[in-house]
């Protein structure tokens, strides 16, 4: 087994007095898709948002423990949260393109980080990102149209293209398919599978079938605790814990 790329130790997260995540230890390997599953309110999204410190936006939210990416504790005072988020991208539950053109949506991250030195390079990079997100063929001739003129599935792939344009090391996905129809979901799932070779992906999903289809490793959360973590096929076919068994067979959830 490789040394873990992302490792969480004793992670507890609080909203005010209420504890949402209890003492989670989790090791995530590079270039794999790790699914976080569990019933609503089990803390999986909270844990995901802790990985790029989006929880900092919520003033009542407090983090304890250590979370290391590539050996660096991301909650250390020396870590610049802006630099962290450029390396740890995030795709949200509801597609949220900027109210700008398709091109501007993808180019935005490149522009603010000044990752390209010329206009042609910027255009190439946007094209590459849209191709990687499997969106290029559908929208190549309407790059200047507003991003929210696209369909829901296209919007979500636009958000993925926007995220991979800045080439982060980790991509966090918070139920990216929950607002999509089954066909769009299938397209996005295939895309996630393809992205695995370039990125480390952590995905929160409500759908156990989806977790089984796209992930190599699965973590089951229940009531804020990490109940079970392992190879996806083991978790789904041969769970060690009774609670996991109950969840995947539909007895709790």
């Amino acid at each position: 087994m490789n040394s873990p790329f992302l490792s969480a130790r004793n992670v507890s997260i609080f909203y005010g007095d209420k504890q949402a995540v209890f003492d989670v230890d989790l090791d995530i390997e590079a270039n794999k898709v790790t699914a976080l599953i569990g019933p609503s309110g089990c803390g999986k999204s909270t844990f995901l948002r802790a990985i790029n410190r989006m929880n900092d936006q919520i003033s009542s939210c407090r983090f304890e423990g250590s979370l290391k990416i590539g050996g660096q504790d991301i909650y250390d005072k020396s870590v610049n949260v802006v630099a962290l988020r450029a390396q740890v991208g995030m795709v949200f539950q509801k597609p949220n393109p900027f109210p700008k053109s398709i091109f501007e949506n993808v180019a935005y991250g490149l522009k603010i980080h000044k990752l390209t030195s010329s206009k042609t390079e910027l255009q190439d990079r946007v094209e590459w990102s849209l191709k990687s997100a499997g969106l290029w063929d559908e929208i190549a001739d309407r790059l200047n149209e507003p991003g929210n003129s696209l369909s829901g599935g296209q919007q979500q792939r636009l958000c993925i293209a926007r995220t991979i344009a800045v080439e982060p090391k980790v991509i966090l996905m918070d139920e990216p398919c929950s607002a999509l129809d089954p066909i769009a979901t299938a397209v996005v799932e295939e895309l996630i599978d393809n992205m695995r070779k370039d990125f480390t992906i952590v995905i929160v999903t409500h759908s156990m079938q989806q977790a089984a289809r796209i992930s190599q490793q699965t973590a089951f959360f229940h009531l804020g605790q990490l109940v079970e973590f392992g190879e996806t096929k083991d978790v789904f076919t041969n769970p060690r814990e009774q609670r996991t068994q109950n969840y995947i067979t539909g007895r709790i959830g």
Partner: protein
Amino acid sequence: MIDFSKHAGFDLSVRTRAEKRFQWTGRLAILLSLAFLGWMMVTIIWGAIGATQSVQIAVSVDLSRVDGQAIENTRFGSIVKTGLRSQFPEVSKRADKKKLYNLVSPEGGFELARQVQKNPDLLGETALIWLTASDDLSQYYRGQMDVDLPEDQRQVSDLEIAWITDLADRGQIRTKANWGFFTNGDSREPEIAGILAALVGSALSLAVCFALSFPIGIAAATYLEEFAPLNRISDIVEVNINNLAAVPSIVFGLLGLSIFLGYFGLPRSSPLVGGMVLSLMTLPTIIIASRASLKSVPPSIKEAALALGATPVQAVFHHVFPVALPGMLTGAIIGMARALGDTAPLLMIGMVAFIVDIPKSILEPATALPVQIFLWADSPERAFSEKTSAAILALLFFLVAMNLVAILLRRKLEQRF
């Protein structure tokens, strides 16, 4: 066939009647308010009709002895009086002469001087010159005076009526579109008083007000809404801003009087101070409207930018701000419209002055449109009442225009997300 009106178990007729009753109450309320609005508008427009026309009287003036080099020193007033006397040579009593002179506006001499300056060819001969008539003549000529009253109770005596009839028969009285109303400053004489000075004063004050309150307002709103930590201090600030929006505007006038005039010694009656005081009043409105506008931007847009590694300032100014801007502008314009119509704070800082000259800068004494209305409404001369109505119409026109601009701006700039 099922009879849906007779469902077993409950009676619909009571509910249906309640429904109808409510709808008719609503319609009646709207009708009533529209009727009042219409009534008000008709009254104002009716009152203002007189102000659209000015009455002129032709006086034959002897300009043969005027020195073309010394026009400034010529007493045109007495030339006009001589002209009037030559028209009615039978008038000899001092009191009657005074009445005769009163046919022409007291400003007639200046008017003649201006005409001579514009047209020096008039010099050296006797010419028939159209001059603005006095307000008494105008009122009588337009039939706005009750001639059935006993002579000692009306403004125009029988003698004057005879003169006026005589002049009218000779074609020496005419009515003309009153452009002077838009091009003159205020005057003691209603026949030549205009709103330009007040209009310019209002425009300068509003410019100062906008320049101050818009940047400060949106900066404050953006900081409070997007960056300020949620703690006691920001709570106190928020409560205070909301309270400030409800403070009577005269209080801001007092504040301006004691601080801007008393402490900083800024020029009294100037649009600069007027604009500063008005901006105190509009700031809370702008801040509240801007915050509401910022709040309505979906947080997911900001989160998306942050997740890409944008700094909070970048996320706000690149994405939240452009979406919120139309709403902020609308709030600002509505605040401005309120400022345009407000009188009380301006009274406190001396913008209630009698201003004849058009202010040329924000440091010169000026008055404002609503203050002008206030002043005219207070004047005893009957002719000022039509000026008041006309000035109210002008003010209403600008208010409607500003609100229209606000709506158009919002339509044009609005982005959908």
